[in-house]
């Protein structure tokens, strides 16, 4: 068994699967292709077969493992307690040839994303580009010459105005004696691209009597690095974050489900040096909705006339096991707001970090199902608490009169 150990450090995890098949209907990619190799059971079987030396990957054959969204829906339903995130993380890091990341991807992940100033500069460039009138031309050219690039281009984020951005290094005090003292986790690109979400988060926390500190030296959560198999990079980032937040906080508030899941999930490639060094649990990261729900809503509200559907980010419901009612209970604090049920709200929207850029065909198919359900729900606002999902749903709903917001933004709108 030493050989198998070498091949996949999470090999033992693959043995948790008893091949019962209960996960199949919950897997978005299996829903699209109906191919066993695109299902949780199939993927685990492939990893196990490979680790045991019964199967060798010819070129491209591990595409079924790359097509996993790591949405972790299978984990929520598997009675055997499989951990797809851990298996995928270890597989993508350890497969023949190592992590498969393009030079551009590696450059972005290593040189841009962990550095706030560079992210800001890149954002500025994007904004200039957006205002220049070039995007229309580029889109038309790409549509003709390079459809995959054209898609990526069409999906580029529309950067939201950064007036009143929450600046790193700031502190916010509520009126009266604070009920809690919390840190705000900013993330990498979200801080620049989705400034209104951070603003709304601070507003709602203040309204509910929390003091908020925003430490300067925090950085990216490392989730994308982990997805890609760049575990050492992810570990370094985790360490930097652990040092950034002071020890006296009741919680470090995370408003991006993907970051939250990554920050609270320990590393599991226990064979590689320095594993678990960062001990992510030491920092009390909490999802913003889960934290507010537990703290108890005390802010004054005003009515909002909206029909709202809640789409659950995978990394909140499956990754952090925060059930839907935690978010909808909060939304119900706003008078006049009508919640409408959304079929399949626990199913992935196809965003999957940067999955939608790497696996566009599958992502589109998964997204189509989601858009359909949202339209059928009759909502005029859909809320979801994760930047990737926000961008993905905005892209999917671009031809519909349905607003896509972070739940915290709707809550902020409902503050008196």
């Amino acid at each position, binding site marked *: 068994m030493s050989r198998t150990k070498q091949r996949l450090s999470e090999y033992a995890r693959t043995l948790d699967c008893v091949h019962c098949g209960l996960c199949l209907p919950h897997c978005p990619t299996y829903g699209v292709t109906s191919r066993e190799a695109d299902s949780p059971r199939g993927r685990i079987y492939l990893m196990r077969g490979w680790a045991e030396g*019964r199967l060798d990957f010819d070129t491209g054959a591990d595409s079924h493992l790359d097509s996993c969204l790591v949405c972790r829906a299978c984990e929520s339903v598997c009675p055997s307690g499989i951990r797809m995130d851990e298996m995928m993380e270890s597989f993508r890091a350890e497969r023949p040839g190592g992590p498969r990341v393009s030079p551009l991807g590696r450059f972005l992940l290593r040189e841009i994303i962990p550095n706030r100033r560079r992210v800001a500069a890149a954002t500025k460039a994007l904004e200039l580009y957006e205002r220049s009138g070039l995007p229309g031309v580029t889109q038309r050219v790409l549509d003709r010459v390079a459809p995959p690039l054209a898609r990526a281009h069409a999906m580029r984020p529309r950067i939201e105005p950064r007036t009143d951005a929450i600046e790193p290094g700031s502190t916010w005090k509520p009126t009266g004696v604070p009920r809690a003292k919390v840190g705000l986790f900013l993330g990498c690109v979200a801080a620049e691209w989705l400034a209104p979400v951070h603003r709304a988060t601070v507003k709602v926390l203040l309204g509910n009597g929390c003091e908020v500190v925003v430490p300067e030296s925090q950085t990216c959560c490392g989730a994308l690095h982990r997805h890609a198999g760049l575990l050492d990079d992810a570990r370094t980032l985790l360490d930097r974050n652990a040092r950034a937040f002071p020890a006296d906080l009741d919680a470090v508030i995370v408003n991006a489900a993907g970051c939250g899941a990554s920050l609270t999930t320990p590393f599991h490639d226990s064979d590689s040096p320095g594993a678990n060094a960062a001990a992510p649990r030491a920092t009390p990261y909490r999802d913003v909705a889960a934290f507010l729900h537990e703290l108890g809503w005390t802010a004054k509200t005003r009515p909002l006339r909206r029909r709202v559907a809640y789409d659950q980010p995978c990394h909140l419901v499956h990754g952090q096991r925060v059930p839907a009612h935690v978010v909808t209970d909060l939304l119900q604090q706003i008078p006049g707001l009508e919640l409408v049920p959304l079929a399949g709200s626990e199913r992935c929207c196809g965003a999957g970090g940067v999955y939608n850029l790497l696996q566009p065909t599958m992502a589109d198919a998964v997204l189509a199902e989601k858009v359909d359900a949202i339209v059928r729900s009759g909502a005029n606002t859909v809320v979801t608490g994760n930047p990737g999902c926000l961008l993905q749903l905005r892209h999917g709903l671009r031809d519909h009169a349905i607003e896509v917001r972070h739940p915290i933004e709707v809550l902020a709108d409902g503050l008196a």
Partner: protein
Amino acid sequence: MSLPDPFRELARRFPADRFLTDRTELFVYECDGLPVHRQPPAAVVLCETRDEVVACVKWCAANEVPFVPRGAGTGLSGGATPVRGCLLLDLNRMRAIRKIDARSRYAVVEPGLINVRLTEAAKPHRLMYAPDPSSQTACTLGGNIAENSGGPHCLKYGVTIDHVLGLEVVLPDGEVVRLGGPIADHPDHDLVQLFVGAEGTFGVVTEITLRLTPDPPEVRTFLAIFDSMAKACRTVTEITRSGIVPVALEILDRRTIEAVEASVNRAGYPTNAAAVLLVELDGFAAGMDEEERAIVAMARANDPIELRSARDPAERVALWKGRKGAFGAMGRVDTDLYVLDGVVPRTALEETLEKVYEIADRYRVKVSNVFHAGDGNLHPNISYDGRDADVTARVLAAGEEMLRACVAAGGSISGEHGIGLEKRDFMPLLFGEGDLALMTGIRDAIDPEGIANPGKGFPDRRAKRRKARA
């Protein structure tokens, strides 16, 4: 990957993403819910229409290539395990509900539809599809037909066969027949009965007409937790003797309880629990109070650690959760799981269980029991490490002996999981030579070439011939 020539000709008729020949893709189809048997198929085709099924089956007949139908692959007797050189017909993409007739209470569906989807679709009409295998959120109705599946609620409502009104079948020569229909006493209804439980050896089911059952107006669920298995079994015997027919009477033993408590389906059972008995009643509220009181009294008389009852749907789901997730939760005990399926007279439950534990000890294997106590359907689950050949051999031997114990107690070797590959060699335990000859005779009349899921249910007499040719 080089395919035998004739396959290539068939492959041309399908888009590449529905005709799979890549070694990696085939590898994952090599087993079903019983991974002791493994054999990759020569090719997999994901059929979307009956006509595609016909084309494939005709091609198989013309080229003497065996075919194996496959639903969700949750089967526990190797029914969907490929046979050498076969074409695997995956039916998951045929999943439409063609019709729900609420007034006449029936539905017409395609075979790849997942069992629970039918009940979901019938719900607005206050109807349900009654047979509810514990795998109902994943298994297909085609698979249910082929295995004549049961479920916890079948004690009162009957198993699959009692709910099938009509079938459309592609016979092993590619001819399509329609049997039965929405009217229950259709002249050829008996033929329908013959095809239910055939495990794919009589051809491929491509459309199913199923009876729908009115949603019961009232449901009550209780759970009695005991510190010994004997007390739970005694309660079951008393309930059945009283003449009350619950919809479900299920028992979980100590090891199952431990595994369930460690899983996502944890139900909050006390740690000193040795047996959990789940009882469900349904029907009209009138009279139910009385039945409820009687059952509670019987459970009380056997000195339970705890009694719980659920009156609203959410509480009920919680009580059922542990039971429905029990098999999967056993995955925590060891790497592999062998789920056995045997039936004994209800009066022999306790002594057979004793025997099962004794056999397990003797073979040094870990057994747990979760079973449909109401109809004497035992499911000893053996957890083991399938990578160890010696352990696997002991598991199989212990399993065989457990099934023999069921037969010895006056029972049978399959309650609901079918014979498949797993138990075909045990058939002679139950049936005389004459019975077996009759059964194989019927099969040979329907499948003279022996290409429809050969080797399942009965020993494959043609395997040798095919091998010689290959």
